[in-house]
């Protein structure tokens, strides 16, 4: 059982470049999330989705976009990368709303913008 799979694991971008972080889950979870984790700062919610075709902004959405065309996939798009987007990005999924059920996380994608 793969759970939540993220790709790539590591990426270096130049300022102004764009890229997509891929996330797929095989647990048929309705809820999916993108977080970023900076040292000493905990997890910050970027975007989330409660089902296919439905997305909403989290705490720090600026500079990012998402789509949810299927239950399984929830890609995160970075447009015009900036050094402030250097971080570790985690995709997560859950069966129901946050706090009621466990969040399952991917292994993370470490992004460096130079």
């Amino acid at each position: 059982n793969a759970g939540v799979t993220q790709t790539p694991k590591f990426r270096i971008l130049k300022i102004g470049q764009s890229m997509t972080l891929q996330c797929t889950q095989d647990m048929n979870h309705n809820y999916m999330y993108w977080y970023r984790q900076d040292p000493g700062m905990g997890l910050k919610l970027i975007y989330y989705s409660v089902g296919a075709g439905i997305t909403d902004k989290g705490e720090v959405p600026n500079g990012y976009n998402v789509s949810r065309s299927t239950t399984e996939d929830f890609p995160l798009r970075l447009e015009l990368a900036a050094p402030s987007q250097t971080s570790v990005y985690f995709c997560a999924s859950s069966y129901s709303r946050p706090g009621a059920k466990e969040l399952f996380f991917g292994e993370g994608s470490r992004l460096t913008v130079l």
Partner: protein
Amino acid sequence: TQLLEQSPQFLSIQEGENLTVYCNSSSVFSSLQWYRQEPGEGPVLLVTVVTGGEVKKLKRLTFQFGDARKDSSLHITAAQPGDTGLYLCAGVEDSNYQLIWGAGTKLIIKP
């Protein structure tokens, strides 16, 4: 802005010692979760507490939810090197369904 404060931020102790880490807020939570994260991995759920005063045990780990549902603690008895990791608490406010995360406690258990 809702804050969940974790303390201490960093703790390094010898194998066999006991320790307690704390998660505090000024707001009331409908539930609170504790996760452990190892280097290069995503967080993994340890426990969910939902009732004020609730105590849950997971082997040598004891979790407590405050009576007022504003704080929680994690106590580890006879810590082992395998307990090393980043411990994160996350709470859901009564008024919405977003998880609020603490910054974490980095725990190192030395053999």
